[in-house]
């Protein structure tokens, strides 16, 4: 029973990981750029949710879309002002640019909001459902279900729509896409917008049951890396499966080995994976 409980808890958390990781994998797959600030985008979204609740008194119906819109704007801004200019530059510039962004966001938050942990009240989405001994908290259920639906939605957007085909065309070959009349820049800006918006939703959902602090992003960045690596770089369905798996691994290792080791297990898994299969478990060589 405890294993079932841990498994379900892990799956619900994993769906949220899958959502923000599919944003990272979208950006990576489209333009071979790693967003080292991805977890800090999650952090920004968590603060948007927190302040929307404390200052405006609005609930998740309002602050989840609000976080998505804010992060969409941030993503597009980052692409237009920074990434567009460095993505074909030297490798050093590519790597350090979003790393600098991560530092900037993290310490701006520390400076503005202080290092204190804050959190939304537990009762915002309260209640625990009991399904024959299996306990499901409403906030986890809401977060997990929303994240699952949106991740699948992103997959459908990329594979079943005209817009998705255009984005895929740009990711396959920028020049060829431009030759058939698809302008690469707006597509890539859109990829950054959508990728960041997915972290916006995920961050606002996580804030329902997780503390908010300026440095919370670091572990989310690493979680997104592991997920993307496990699922294959650039693959949204891969990120979904991997996110769910990592949620379960975390929840089980936290229970049996103590909470301090839940990150150790995941980071070690990541390093081993990179060493053994640098293209990702489900990725192509």
């Amino acid at each position, binding site marked *: 029973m405890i294993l079932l409980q841990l498994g379900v808890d892990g799956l619900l958390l994993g769906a949220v990981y899958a959502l923000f990781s599919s944003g990272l994998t979208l950006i990576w797959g489209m333009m*071979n*750029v*790693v967003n*080292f600030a991805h977890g800090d985008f999650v952090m920004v979204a968590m603060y948007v949710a927190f302040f929307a609740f404390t200052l405006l008194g609005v609930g998740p119906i309002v602050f989840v879309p609000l976080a998505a819109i804010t992060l969409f704007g941030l993503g597009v801004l980052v692409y237009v*002002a*920074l990434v567009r*200019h*460095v993505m074909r*530059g*030297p*490798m*050093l*510039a*590519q*790597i*350090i*640019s979003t*790393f*600098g*962004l*991560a*530092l*900037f*966001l*993290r*310490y*701006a938050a*520390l*400076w503005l909001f202080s*290092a204190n942990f804050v959190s939304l009240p537990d009762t915002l989405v309260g209640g625990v459902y009991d399904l024959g001994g299996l306990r499901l908290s409403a906030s986890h259920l809401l977060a997990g279900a929303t994240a699952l639906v949106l991740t699948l939605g992103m997959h459908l957007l990329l594979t079943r729509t005209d817009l998705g085909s255009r984005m895929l065309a740009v990711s396959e070959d920028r020049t060829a896409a431009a030759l058939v009349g698809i302008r690469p820049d707006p597509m890539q800006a859109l990829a950054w917008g959508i990728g960041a918006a997915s972290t916006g939703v995920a961050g606002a959902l996580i804030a329902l049951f997780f503390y908010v602090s*300026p440095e919370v992003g*670091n*572990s989310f*960045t*690493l979680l997104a*890396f*592991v997920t993307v*690596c496990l699922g294959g770089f650039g693959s949204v369905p891969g990120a979904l499966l991997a996110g769910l798996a990592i949620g379960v691994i975390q929840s089980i290792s936290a229970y049996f080995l103590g909470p*301090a*080791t839940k*990150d*150790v297990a995941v*980071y*070690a898994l*990541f*390093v081993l994976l*990179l*060493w053994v299969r*640098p293209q990702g478990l489900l990725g192509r060589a």
Partner: protein
Amino acid sequence: MKNFPRVLLIAAAAALVAAPFLTGNPFYQRIAALTALAAISASAWNLIGGYGGQVSFGHSVYFGIGAYASLLAYTKLGVPPIAGAPLGVLASFALSVIVGLPSFRLRGHYFSMATIAIAALAEVLVTNWGFAGGAIGLMGPASPRSLADLLFRSALPYYALFVAVLASLLGFTYLMQRGRMGFYLRALGSGERAAESLGVPIRRYKLYALLVSGAFTSLAGSLYAVMVGFIDPGSGFGILVSVNMVVMSALGGAGTLFGPLVGAIILVPLEETTNALLGGGSSGAAYVVYGAIIMLIARFSPGGLAQWWPLLSGKGRRGAA
């Protein structure tokens, strides 16, 4: 007149090195010592990160190993902290081979991602390692038992020691830059596939660069612990320790001889003065500025300041990269 700028440069450098001995102000002397120390680890990072183009965010692990080696030697064996430095260097060699070598299969972003995870892993492990003080960390000797404890009230002896280490590192870098290894590393840094197809034994030379880079970073960690007399997981293994090395190298010019030193000369006094003015380093303001600097460098001047001033690269005027 052809050599005029070089003569001027040497005179300016000599004045800069001597300046802390001439000022009586302990605040400036301390800043000078910290600058030299930061320049050691940044220049060490530069070997693999700048010349070799392998952007490591995990060098904090080497720094932490060095720092913990000295204070573990003191707390567990009772020897002077500096006696732990060779142990730290040995451990850094082991780390380069065991962890560095497999990571070298990864290119570009993948390598950087792995180094972030390795550093995070090391920080968590040390935080949970009771023998090494856990989250609280380790303290050095409170008062000097002998000269070997290297405990001085003034920062000047530290400054002299750090400058000597820095000079030997820069001397090594200068010789390397002119030799086979320098060419191989720069070929690697400007395109790994191309270098490999030209027959550069890339993994071997990456490892050589990492061995030296890690050893000097570990030494910098030991020297830090000797001077400050305290280490905890955050100040040893935290990501910000790596950030300092990366930002200083990138600002001055990654892959140039004097770039990291110039970066340290600009950033350490800036950080120390703002901390003194704003009260404590906990406000995070310095790292907001560092993040902005990194983004601006990446966006506008990936070669750092050296891009604008070829003399910095140590190659003279014509050798501008």
